[in-house]
C-alpha cells in the first residue's frame, strides 16, 4: 500500500484555494461549515412550509368549511395533501437535515479537532441531492391532481393505485423525493462516520468524544441499517404505481402488509435516528450550564447502543390492528416495553447530571430542560400505546397523534432551538439577544403544551385521526370536543406568531448582535477553542486532546472547566 499511499489524492482538491469566488464559497462550497449552513437554511425554509400546512389544516379542523386566512377554502384532497406532507416534511426535510446534517456537519469536524470532513466533495454532493429531493417534493404539490395525500406512511393500495389515491403523479413524485432524500443521507452518513472514526485529533480516544458526536454517528448507523429495505420497498412501490406491477396488491398476488413491515422496520428506528442527535445536543448543553460532569458517560453511551439495537425489533407495535398474528403482537409488546428502559435510563442520567449543579437558566438551557420534560410525557404515553390491548382502542386516534408530537416536537423543534441558540455565537460570531430568546422560549413552550395536551383527551374521547371535517361525524361533532379543537388551533396560531420573534432575533443578531468571544459559555469541547466564527480550516494548529469533554468543576482546580486540549501541566 505504500506506493499507493504516496499517490493518494494528488489532484483531488484543486478547489482549496485561499480566495474562493462567491460561487465556490456560497453556492458550491466544500467547507463543512458552509454546507452545514446550506442544510440549516434549507431545513428552516422547509419548516416554514410544514408549519404553514399545519396552520391551514388546524384552522380547517377548528372552523370546518370556512375560508382560512392566507389560504381559502380547504378541500378534502388539499387537506389530505397538507397533513401528509406536513409529516413528511417535518421528519425528512426538517428534523434530519437540521439535527443530523446541519449540526453533524458543523460539529463533527470541529469537535473532533480536524479541518474538514474526510470527503468534502462527497459532502457537497449529499447536499445537492438533498436539495433536489426537496425541490421534487415541492414540485409534487403542483402537478395535475395535486400532492400526495395518503399519509406519511403511504400504505398501499391507497398509495399505489392512482384511482384510489387520486394523485397519479403526486404520489410518484412523493416516493421519488423520499427515495432521493434517503440516498442523500446514506452518502452523507459516509462522511459523518468516517470523519468521527478516522479524523479525530491525536489523543482523542473513543470515550473522549463528546456525546453530541457519538449520538449523531449512532443515529447515522441506525439509519443506514434500517433504510435499505425501505429503499427496496420504495422501488417496488414506484413500480406498482408506474409500471403496474403488483408487489403490494392482493389482486395480483402481492401483499399490502409487506409494505407496512418494510415501512415500520425503518420507521421505528427512524424515530431514534432523530431522537439521538437531540439527546446528544442536550447532553452537551446541560453539562455546560450546570457546570457538572455528565453523569455516567459510559452508561449514557451504552444505553444508546441498547436503544439502537432494540429499535430494530419493535416495529410491529405500529401494526397491532393491521391483521398481524396476535401471538406475534405479544412479542412486540414485550420488546416495546423493554425499549423504554434504556430511554428512561438515559433521561435519569441527565436528571442526575442536573442534580446539585449550579444551574444557569440561559436560553439554550431552558430549551434543553424543556426537552427533558416534554420528551418524558412523550415516552410515557408510548408505553401505554405499546400495550396491544390498549392500542386496539388508541390506534389511529388523537392519543397517538399527541404521543408522537410529544416526542417529535421536543426532538425537532425544541432540539433545533436549543442547538441554534447554543452554537449561534460559534456559527455567526455574534451573541443572540437573551431577553428575546427567553420571550420566544416561553411563547413557544407554553402554546406547544396547550396544543397537544388537549389532544390526548380528544383521543381518549374517541377522536379518530385523519378526518377532514368532524361535522360529518355526529358523535365527534359535539360542542365540548369542538371547543378543545378551537383551543388547540388558537394555541398553534399563538405559537406561530411567537416565531416572528425568533426570526427577528436570529437575523438581527447575525448582523448586529454583540460580538461573541471564542468561548462565551466556558465550555470544554474543541469548537470553543477556535475563533467565532471559525476560519476556513478551523484550527490554526490542529489540537491535541488530553481528556474527555465533561470535566466541569473538577475538585482542586481553580477554573470550573477544563478544555479538552489544555495540556495537563497548564491551568
Amino acid at each position, binding site marked *: 500500500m505504500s506506493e499507493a499511499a504516496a499517490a*493518494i489524492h494528488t489532484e483531488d482538491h484543486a478547489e482549496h484555494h485561499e480566495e474562493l469566488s462567491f460561487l465556490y464559497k456560497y453556492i458550491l462550497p466544500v467547507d463543512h461549515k458552509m454546507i452545514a449552513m446550506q442544510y440549516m437554511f434549507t431545513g428552516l425554509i422547509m419548516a416554514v412550509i410544514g408549519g404553514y400546512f399545519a396552520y391551514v389544516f388546524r384552522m380547517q379542523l377548528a372552523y370546518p368549511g370556512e375560508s382560512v386566512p392566507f389560504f381559502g377554502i380547504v378541500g378534502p384532497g388539499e387537506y389530505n395533501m397538507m397533513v401528509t406532507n406536513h409529516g413528511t416534511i417535518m421528519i425528512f426535510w426538517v428534523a434530519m437535515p437540521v439535527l443530523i446534517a446541519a449540526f453533524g456537519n458543523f460539529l463533527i469536524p470541529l469537535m473532533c479537532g480536524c479541518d474538514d470532513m*474526510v470527503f468534502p466533495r462527497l459532502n457537497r454532493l449529499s447536499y445537492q441531492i438533498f436539495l433536489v429531493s426537496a425541490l421534487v417534493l415541492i414540485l409534487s404539490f403542483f402537478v395535475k391532481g395535486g400532492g400526495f395525500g395518503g399519509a406519511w406512511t403511504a400504505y398501499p393500495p391507497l398509495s399505489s393505485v392512482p384511482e384510489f389515491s387520486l394523485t397519479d403523479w403526486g404520489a410518484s413524485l412523493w416516493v421519488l423525493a423520499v427515495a432521493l432524500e434517503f440516498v442523500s443521507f446514506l452518502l452523507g452518513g459516509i462522511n459523518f462516520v468516517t470523519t468521527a*472514526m478516522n*479524523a479525530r485529533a491525536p489523543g482523542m480516544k473513543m470515550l473522549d468524544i463528546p456525546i453530541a458526536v457519538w449520538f449523531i454517528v449512532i443515529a447515522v448507523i441506525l439509519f443506514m441499517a434500517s433504510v435499505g*429495505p*425501505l429503499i427496496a420497498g420504495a422501488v417496488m412501490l414506484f413500480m406498482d404505481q408506474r409500471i403496474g406491477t403488483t408487489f403490494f396488491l392482493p389482486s395480483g398476488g402481492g401483499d399490502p402488509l409487506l409494505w407496512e413491515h418494510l415501512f415500520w422496520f425503518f420507521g421505528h428506528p427512524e424515530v431514534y435516528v432523530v431522537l439521538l442527535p437531540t439527546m446528544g445536543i442536550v447532553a452537551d448543553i446541560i453539562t455546560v450550564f450546570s457546570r457538572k460532569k455528565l453523569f455516567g458517560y459510559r452508561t449514557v453511551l451504552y444505553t444508546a447502543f441498547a436503544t439502537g439495537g432494540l429499535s430494530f425489533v419493535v416495529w410491529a407495535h405500529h401494526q397491532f390492528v393491521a391483521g398481524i398474528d396476535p401471538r406475534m403482537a405479544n412479542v412486540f409488546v414485550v420488546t416495546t416495553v423493554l425499549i423504554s428502559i434504556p430511554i428512561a435510563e438515559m433521561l435519569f442520567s441527565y436528571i442526575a447530571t442536573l442534580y446539585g449543579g449550579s444551574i444557569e437558566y440561559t436560553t439554550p438551557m431552558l430549551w434543553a430542560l424543556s426537552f427533558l420534560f416534554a420528551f418524558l410525557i412523550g415516552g410515557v404515553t408510548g408505553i401505554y400505546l405499546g400495550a396491544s390491548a390498549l392500542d386496539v382502542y388508541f390506534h389511529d386516534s388523537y392519543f397517538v397523534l399527541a404521543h408522537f408530537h410529544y416526542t417529535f416536537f421536543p426532538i425537532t423543534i425544541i432540539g433545533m432551538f436549543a442547538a441554534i441558540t447554543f452554537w449561534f455565537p460559534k456559527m455567526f460570531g455574534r451573541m443572540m439577544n437573551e431577553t428575546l430568546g427567553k420571550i420566544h422560549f416561553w411563547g413557544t413552550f407554553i402554546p406547544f403544551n396547550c396544543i397537544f395536551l388537549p389532544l390526548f383527551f380528544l383521543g381518549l374521547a374517541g377522536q379518530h385521526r385523519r378526518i377532514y371535517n368532524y361535522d360529518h361525524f355526529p358523535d365527534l361533532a359535539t360542542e365540548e370536543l369542538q371547543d378543545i379543537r378551537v383551543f388547540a388551533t388558537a394555541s398553534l396560531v399563538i405559537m406561530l406568531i411567537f416565531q416572528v420573534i425568533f426570526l427577528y432575533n436570529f437575523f438581527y443578531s447575525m448582523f448586529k448582535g454583540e460580538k461573541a468571544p471564542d468561548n462565551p459559555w466556558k465550555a470544554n469541547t474543541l469548537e470553543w477553542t477556535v475563533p467565532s466564527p471559525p476560519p476556513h480550516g478551523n484550527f490554526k494548529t490542529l489540537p491535541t486532546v488530553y481528556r474527555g469533554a465533561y470535566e466541569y468543576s473538577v475538585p482542586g482546580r481553580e477554573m470550573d472547566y477544563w478544555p479538552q486540549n489544555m495540556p495537563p501541566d497548564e491551568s
Partner: protein
Amino acid sequence: MSTRGPVATHRSSTGIPAGRLAVWWLLASEIFIFGGLIACFVLFKLNGTPGFEDASETSVVAGAFNTFVLLTSSLTVVLAHAAVERGDREKAFTYIWYTFAAGIVFLMVKVYEYSGKILSGHTITENLFWSFYYTMTGLHALHVIGGMVVMALISFDVRKGYNYQRVELIGLYWHFVDLVWIFLFPLFYIANF
C-alpha cells in the same frame, strides 16, 4: 503524503484508510437494500405465491455462464489490484479493461435473456415472480454498469500513475456485485420448487 486537501482525509485513527472505510460503508448500505429485496422474494416464495414455479422457465445455462463470467471478472480485478501494488501500471490498466469486457459479456447475456423472455410473454407485470426477476436482476445490472463506468474512468488515472488506491476500492465494490449475483442465481434460476 500529499499536503493538499484537508488533513482530515489523511488521518487514520482506526488505522484503516478513509477510502476503504467509505466503500465498506457504501457496501453495507447496499447489503441492506438487496437484503430487503431478497427477503421479500423469499417470503413470497415460502408463502407459495402463484407464479413462482416460473423459475423453471429461466435458463440455467445462461445463468451459470454469467456466474462464471462474473467470477472470472472478480479474478481479473484482483489481478489489477496486485499489479498496481507492484507498481505495474500497464498491467493494471489491462486487467481493469479485462474486467470491463467481462461486464460487457455479462450484460449481453442479460439482454439476450430479457428479450427472449419478453418475446415469450414473460413481462414484468405477468406475475410476482417476473416482477421480482426484472426488478432485482435489473437493479443488479445497473450496479454492473455503474461499476464499469467507474472502472473506465479510473483506469486512465492509474495508467498515468496516480490514485492507485482506487483500484482496490473498485475491486471491493466489484466483489460485492459478484456476491449479489451469487445470491440471485440460485433464487431465480435453480430453486424452482
